[in-house]
């Protein structure tokens, strides 16, 4: 039951790209370790504990102090490795001669419930001494885990879904049930683990299960041959797709990723509990501007997703709405097999019933999606182009006669996304990446012309293939003009097509504009820097939109 087992688990999970393999590894770990250690393992792997006991900087300084190691050297190493905990782990290997008697059989439980928490009770000097002592007594293979937990950076490619799957396999019970059990404040204890692997299912668990989601396909040309009247048109919102379930009085909010997110949106759960009927709704969760009746940026929604039990002020600052697209079950009756147009009628009927009961008071958090009624296909195009104005990504087109099946079934639902805006820009700065991209120049800044000067207008990190990243990295190293810490200014030579979703005036930027979701869509090797766009082109683009 030692920490060694967990270190091995980490290595195994980290060195596998196969989901099945990871599930198998997890299952075996759970089978061969004590419930309390399993409980801690789940707690760590699901990222429930990201408490930072000391910062990465502190860790590096401490190492430098203890072993009289130049700080600049540690920082140079950091640029290559991209993670403080790992840098120190690697550097500690050079100190193996000073290692004392090994503390080989410390358990994961002991480390997490005693050794590490006890550090906070010490004064700085004692704490430093204790960390040094642990470094020198802990077997080398456990250093990474220890340093990562200490700095709150323990992460491995395991989603809560994977834990769910492995527990589900272990005890042979549906994943949705396990998901439900993993919800909430999972406190590491023997009891919480025993509860998780209990083979008896209670009624409430059964009632929370969502239906498999039906997904939209990318638009196909053949659809334009059909009559416009065969389809239902909706805006494509950029929020979180969800099923809102109320059965036997209990509300559950399920994301498409099979995550139960009740705790992040308690106001929605509370309001929907007031409704008398039971139901399953398919819809989208958004942060909403109630005055102008449009969705707010996804970035604001992100402020809500990862925050459990949000305070009242957070709830007011980022007001949410659930927009229902579809009704899948009503008062215990599964209606997925009836036609969409008829489900829509049911949805509208129940919505007006719920809305009209004043005591429900749901209008500030719940609505059904508005339909759009284009005259013909060219009109559809016009609507699509307008979607930027109301902060949507385009249109969703649904066949009126379709039933609600599961998955990305063809010929039922389509997404018709608005084209991104694009400008050709010149690469002028590059910065080293961190984490998985450490040691490579992967963060780029791009500029547009203003008279004869190149003015930075956007930074982008994504869009290049791994091969292109390597090629560009090589070029960057050869064409650096100056280095400022991790940033290099580059010879203006490379032109890239940058796509983005939104463009607006910004006083914070020298260029005077800000773009949303900038990404590289093409390396324009065919273009010289004089062919790149100017800031004027960008302003024109902005005018065209608004």
């Amino acid at each position, binding site marked *: 039951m030692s920490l060694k087992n967990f270190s091995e688990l980490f290595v195994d999970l*980290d*060195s*596998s*790209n*196969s989901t099945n393999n990871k599930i198998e590894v997890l299952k075996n770990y759970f089978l061969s370790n004590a419930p309390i250690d399993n409980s801690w393992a789940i707690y760590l792997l699901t990222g429930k504990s990201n408490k930072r006991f000391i910062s990465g900087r502190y860790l590096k300084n401490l190492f430098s102090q203890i072993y009289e190691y*130049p700080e*600049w*050297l540690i920082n*140079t*190493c950091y640029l*290559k*490795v*991209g*993670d403080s905990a*790992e*840098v120190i782990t*690697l*550097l500690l*290997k*050079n100190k193996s001669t000073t290692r004392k008697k090994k503390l080989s059989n410390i358990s994961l439980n002991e480390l997490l419930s005693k050794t590490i928490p006890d550090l906070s009770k010490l004064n700085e000097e004692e704490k430093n001494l204790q960390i040094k002592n642990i470094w020198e007594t802990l077997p080398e293979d456990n250093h990474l885990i220890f340093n990562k937990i200490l700095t709150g950076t323990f992460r491995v490619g395991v989603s809560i879904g994977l834990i769910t799957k492995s527990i589900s396999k272990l005890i042979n019970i549906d994943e949705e049930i396990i998901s439900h059990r993993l919800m909430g404040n999972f406190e590491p204890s023997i009891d919480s683990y025993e509860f998780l692997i209990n083979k008896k299912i209670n009624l409430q668990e059964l009632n929370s299960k969502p239906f498999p989601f039906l997904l939209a396909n990318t638009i196909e040309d053949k659809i334009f041959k059909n009559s416009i009247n065969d389809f239902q048109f909706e805006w494509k919102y950029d929020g979180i797709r969800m099923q809102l379930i109320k059965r036997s009085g209990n509300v559950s909010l399920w994301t498409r990723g099979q995550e139960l997110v009740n705790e992040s949106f308690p106001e929605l759960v509370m309001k929907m509990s007031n409704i008398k009927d039971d139901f399953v709704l398919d819809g989208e969760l958004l942060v909403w501007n109630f005055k102008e009746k449009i969705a707010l940026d996804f970035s604001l929604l992100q402020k809500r997703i990862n925050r459990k039990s949000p305070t009242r002020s957070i709830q007011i600052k980022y007001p949410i709405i659930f927009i229902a697209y579809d009704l899948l079950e009503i008062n215990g009756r599964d209606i997925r097999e009836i036609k969409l147009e008829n489900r829509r009628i049911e949805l509208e009927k129940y919505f007006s019933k719920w809305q009209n009961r004043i005591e429900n008071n749901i209008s500030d958090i719940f609505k059904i999606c508005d339909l759009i009624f284009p005259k013909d296909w060219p009109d559809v195009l016009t609507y699509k182009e307008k979607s930027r104005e109301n902060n949507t990504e385009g249109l969703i087109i649904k066949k009126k006669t379709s039933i609600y099946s599961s998955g990305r079934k063809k010929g039922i639902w389509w997404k018709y996304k608005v084209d991104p805006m694009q400008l050709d820009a010149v690469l002028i700065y590059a910065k080293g990446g961190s*984490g*998985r*991209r*450490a*040691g*490579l120049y992967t963060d780029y800044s791009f500029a547009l012309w203003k008279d004869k000067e190149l003015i930075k207008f956007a930074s982008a990190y994504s869009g290049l293939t*791994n091969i292109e990243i390597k090629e560009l990295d090589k070029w960057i190293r050869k064409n650096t003009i100056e280095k400022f810490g991790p940033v290099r200014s580059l010879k203006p030579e490379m032109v890239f097509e940058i796509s983005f979703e939104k463009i607006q005036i910004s006083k914070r930027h020298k260029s005077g504009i800000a773009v949303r979701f900038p990404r590289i869509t093409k390396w324009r090797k065919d273009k010289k820097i004089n062919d790149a766009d100017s800031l004027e082109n960008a302003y024109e683009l902005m005018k065209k939109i608004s």
Partner: protein
Amino acid sequence: MRPKQEYLIRYKDGNLYCELADIWIDPSKPVKKALITHAHFDHFTFGCEEYISTKETAILLKERVGDNIKIKTFEYGEEFKINGINISFHPSGHILGSSQIRFIFAGEKWLISGDFKLQKDDTCKQYEIVKTDYLISECTFGLPIFKWVESKKIANDISKWITNSPEKTSLLFCYSLGKAQRLLNEISQTNFKGNIYSHGSIHKMNNSYKKLGIDIKDTIKIENKKKFDELKGSLILLPPSLSKGSYLKNFKNIQTAFASGWMSIRALRKRSGYDKGFPISDHADWDGILEVVKKSEAKNVFFHHGDSEAISKYLVEKESINVLFFGK
């Protein structure tokens, strides 16, 4: 300090060059006379009028590129003279036949480390400490985060990796010349007793090693364009160039790994796309480079290959060693 053009050996067109002898070291373009430190392709170029190397390097090179090159060979430690300069090869421990090259002229000693390692490797001669005034050293792994573990431990990890997944075919990617033979030698001493296959390019080098008297475990040559159904539980050695692309479709139910010093860094391991990385290198780690710098007693050190900024600064600050830079 002397002006750069007066150094016995300097950088010219991106290569090491000794003007007095009109001789190049591992040149990347055709020249009249080339000294070759070892038989890896990034140290060799076609079209030189004459090559000079150790006997083993010459044999390996001819195996790889054919007999159509003119190579003069010398034994380790044997001195030869070009334009009054005494030149000799000394074992560098990198791969079979690999060497450091020492120049002595007018009482001044220069040593080019070549690619080297200090770690134990039964498939080639151990690195020899050579005293010098000027040292030109590689520093591929010139950061203290690189600290090699015993190759025996890596071999045991590889053995465990294979035997823990008896249902899978284990593909281990490694350089065909040197690394593959070293791994074979180490793996044959572990608990793994299953079949080992090797790709044609590796198989060929295994045979060359055997001809040169190195004890290498027999492997089965893997034939191309065949469905390999019967390979579960066995180990297959492949060159890294085959890791991307359609070649892997020949196999069923595989796990992949890469044996390289770079695999000691998690970010590089993740990015490499292999399931697993085994950090084993034929280059010196940080401590190895420092040890060679000290034991060579060089008063002046140059670095090439790799990022040399950190190790240069460290030597100047901590060890008060004079680190010099070649102009480009």
